[in-house]
């Protein structure tokens, strides 16, 4: 029964919050709902830790890997909702851009993402994955400006087509499983597939075909190059809390789905094929996004390309496999989410105070907006992987796995891209922080909700950089155990 509340709260919450027209009331209700949701997700994580995998009916299941990702969702969505509660003071009223629409869609979006992580069935997982696109498309187009409408349309079309390919891949996998003698009810079931995996590898062609379609399909959602075209637009045009949710939660959910397929296919036909594809897409994403970071002009698009780069890093970690590779990849999903939320929050503050995100017209903000600038600096230092921040640890783990396996080409590409990205971020950042302030800002002080969200994120980056907390390490080990 413990698996139902985390789904019921956001689903019914989305309907409930619709009755609150007032912005303050809606924000308060949203915070209460989110607090309940965090408790419900915490209960799932705890139960999985104590009892092992939990099942509920035929379509819901939670194991170590799901609970690791659920914890990430709970943490980041909490930060985002706290930040969002102060965000609406900047926004005007519109027919479909009222706070209640915003919150209702956010909770639906959360519902679909949590369902992805809780699904026991690949078909159900696909339905919910498509649901994430549907729930967030209107949020991407929320501002209703030319850019937002264009980004929303592109997002909807590109991701729907992409995910259609994932459906095809799922069908091919189903076909291979049925051909190998599994019953049609079990052939989409994650746990049964994992158990039966060694026996469905008789026809490797079908399984390879399945994985190619799945990696292209879910890879579109993850933002792998060359299927990434929707990502920078959607991240840049969406309201800031949504950019953070997209980058820090949605991409991880898609990565989670891909991990599930990867573990089934590598168990069936050996890791060679799927892991090479992961390495290929990972390296491509890292290199292309790393180079594009250099030429960005818009602050949020810079963050978006950095997300693509980090998804590449995670894919490389998964593709390398091995104890350190998996450890690094999983830890990096979490670390990247925290750092990217902090960066998007600060970018949002910059936009509100300066009414622009064009980096060439932002200068001298370290004097006009000291607090936001500090957050931006901490986030950027963390995201480029400098110690003492947490991303250093996960990137270092992946890199040492590459050296352990003597994959020098991967290691060199990895290091070169990281240094290019470092240069790019330093170049953009110091131009914005330093220089003469462009215009005076009346009140640049952070309000408490922003303070809390950004403070927690920054603190988390530092703490995880010093040492991965004990409970987190335990959960991480349980998640890795599921994958191996």
């Amino acid at each position, binding site marked *: 029964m413990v698996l139902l509340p985390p789904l019921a709260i956001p689903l019914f919450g989305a309907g409930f919050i619709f009755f609150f027209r007032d912005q303050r009331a809606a924000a308060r209700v949203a915070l209460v709902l989110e607090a309940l949701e965090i408790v419900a997700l915490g209960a799932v994580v705890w139960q999985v830790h104590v009892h092992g995998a939990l099942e509920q009916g035929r379509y819901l299941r939670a194991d170590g890997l799901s609970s690791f990702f659920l914890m990430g969702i709970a943490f980041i969505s909490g930060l985002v909702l706290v930040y969002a509660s102060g965000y609406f003071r900047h926004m005007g009223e519109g027919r479909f851009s009222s706070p209640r629409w915003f919150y209702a869609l956010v909770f639906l979006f959360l519902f679909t993402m949590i369902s992805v992580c809780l699904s026991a069935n690949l*078909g159900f997982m696909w*339905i919910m994955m498509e649901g994430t696109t*549907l729930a967030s498309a209107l949020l991407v187009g929320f501002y209703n400006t030319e850019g937002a*409408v264009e980004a*929303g349309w592109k997002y*909807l079309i590109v991701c729907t087509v992409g995910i*259609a390919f994932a459906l095809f891949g799922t069908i091919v996998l*189903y076909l291979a499983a049925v051909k190998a003698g599994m019953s049609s*009810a079990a052939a989409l079931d994650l746990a049964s597939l994992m158990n039966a995996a060694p026996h469905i590898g008789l026809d490797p*062609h079908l399984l390879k075909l399945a994985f190619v379609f799945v990696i292209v399909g879910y890879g579109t959602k993850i933002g792998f190059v060359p299927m990434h075209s929707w990502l920078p637009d959607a991240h840049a045009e969406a309201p800031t809390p949504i950019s953070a949710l997209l980058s820090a939660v949605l991409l991880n959910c898609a990565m989670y789905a891909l991990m599930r397929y990867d573990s089934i296919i590598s168990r069936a036909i050996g890791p060679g094929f799927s892991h090479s594809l992961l390495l290929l897409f990972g390296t491509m994403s890292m290199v292309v996004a790393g180079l594009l970071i250099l030429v960005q002009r818009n602050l949020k698009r810079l963050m978006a390309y950095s997300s693509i780069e980090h998804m590449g890093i995670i894919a490389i970690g998964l593709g390398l496999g091995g104890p350190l590779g998996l450890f690094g990849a999983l830890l990096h999903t979490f670390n990247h989410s925290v750092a990217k939320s902090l960066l998007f929050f600060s970018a949002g503050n910059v936009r509100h105070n300066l009414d622009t995100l064009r980096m060439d017209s932002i200068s001298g903000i370290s004097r006009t907006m000291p607090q936001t600038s500090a957050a931006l600096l901490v986030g950027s230092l963390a995201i480029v992987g400098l110690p003492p921040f947490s991303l250093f640890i996960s990137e270092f783990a992946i890199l040492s796995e590459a050296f352990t396996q003597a994959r020098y080409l991967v290691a060199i590409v990895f290091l070169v891209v990281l240094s290019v990205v470092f240069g790019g971020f330093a170049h953009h950042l110091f131009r914005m922080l330093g220089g003469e302030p462009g215009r005076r800002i009346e009140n640049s002080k952070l309000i408490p909700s922003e303070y809390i969200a950004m403070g927690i994120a920054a603190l988390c980056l530092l703490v995880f950089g010093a040492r991965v907390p004990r409970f987190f390490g335990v959960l991480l080990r349980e998640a890795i155990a599921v994958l191996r």
Partner: protein
Amino acid sequence: MNLVGIATGKVLSSFSVFLFLTILLLAVARRISTSILLFSLQSAVIAAEVLATAFQQKLPEAYVVGILVLLIKVIAIPSAFFVLTRRLKTVRDVKASTTPTQSVFIVAAMIYLSYGAVHSYGQAVHVPDDALAAAVSLILTGAFLMVSRKKALMQMLGLLVLENGIFLAALITTFGMPLVIEIGIFFDILIGLLLMGIFAFRISDTFEHLDVSRMRRLRG
């Protein structure tokens, strides 16, 4: 008495040809309304195929799926499209970036390509090559329509054709997925189209046209 049996056999042996016909006609169609009708026709062929399979294999679940296809893809979605075209007062031309002759050649090449692609898989899964090739060429044509037609509505239609292909592939290789999943997928498509409709309105509101190729503010 065995008329149904004969009809079933005919449907199963000839539906691929009809599907090829619909995609070739889609390639030459110049008007949005013609394309919508062709999509409806294509879905009707698929619905007939589902019902024929249901009858032949005695699968009660497949009847439900067949009727869903009939209701949603043959009737509901095309009518919604017609309402949308009328309400949006858009020009009726599909605004193709290739001439009809080029399009026919491209689609024909795709059909040829599909036969080549499925050749090695057809025998492995005990499915006639024609059916599998029809499914793959629907997917390819759908993608082709999406990239070569500039109207937002035609992109939605291309997506539907692509989805028809995937649906057909699932059907002929596995006799369909479990019913609950199948219904979930239908539901997703419906919501997706609804949202695309909302966006089509917003595009025509904010840009005063529906030409997707002219939305190019976001680059790089």
